């Protein structure tokens, strides 16, 4: 029994479930993202317009949630494809490392964008101090 349990824990059942949960969350957040950005901005592509949207903490919280669920769902999806077609241990570890690297870099870039834009005055202050 113990052995069976150990084996099922390696079948990816949790990844499967999380992929579906993140999918449902993403469905809502993606529609929200498209209706608040892609459909209504860019008649006058405006830095000010985007920045003024990003001053609301609740809006930014949703954006951050969108960022992490999208990255998780997307990269977990890539990993599922990898598991179907790549069988050598070396290449699996290589691609897994690549996915972790890309994921953490984009998480960093995305979070930095949200934090910097939502704290523009603070950023100016930091720049002033470092000069």
């Amino acid at each position, binding site marked *: 029994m113990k052995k069976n349990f150990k084996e099922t824990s390696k079948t990816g059942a949790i990844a499967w479930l999380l992929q*579906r949960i993140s*999918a*449902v969350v*993403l*469905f809502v957040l*993606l529609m929200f993202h*498209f209706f608040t950005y*892609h*459909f*209504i901005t*860019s*008649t006058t*592509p*405006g*830095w*000010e317009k*985007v*920045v003024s949207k990003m001053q609301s903490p609740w809006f930014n919280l949703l954006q951050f949630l969108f*960022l992490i669920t*999208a*990255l998780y769902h*997307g*990269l977990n*999806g*890539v990993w599922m*494809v990898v598991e*179907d*077609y790549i*069988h050598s241990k070396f290449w699996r570890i290589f691609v897994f490392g690549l996915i972790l690297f*890309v994921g953490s870099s*984009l998480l960093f*870039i*995305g979070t*930095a*964008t949200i934090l*910097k*834009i939502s704290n523009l005055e603070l950023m100016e202050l930091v720049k002033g101090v470092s000069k």
Partner: protein
Amino acid sequence: MYKRTKFFDLSYYKFIGSWAWILHRLAGLALIFYLCLHIWVINTLTLGPDKFNQVMTFLGSPLFKFLEVGLWGVILFHAFNGVRIVIVDFFKGSLFHKKLFVILVAIAVVLWAIGSYLLLSHIQWAG
């Protein structure tokens, strides 16, 4: 041990579910590629108004707006087929998944038309 999967076994492709599966995968891979570019490009917000507006004007050209229309289509397919997958996995959807596929794709097409109209109305023909 792993069992090797054929990359593309055509004998399965007489069923709608196989097409839904492969298109869902391809759409997903396209979307993660777009997501990477999107996060990177939007980071130009931090470089100030001039840089960001310059990039947005470039992306407001007809070519990119038509690409965005395609993106919206790929997203809707992946999202609505995803809804089908969740219904199949959790709500006995396997009993009616083909009908479900047709209905959900029909809804997606309607949303695609509406979204595409909104996107294309933003084209800056002069730029």
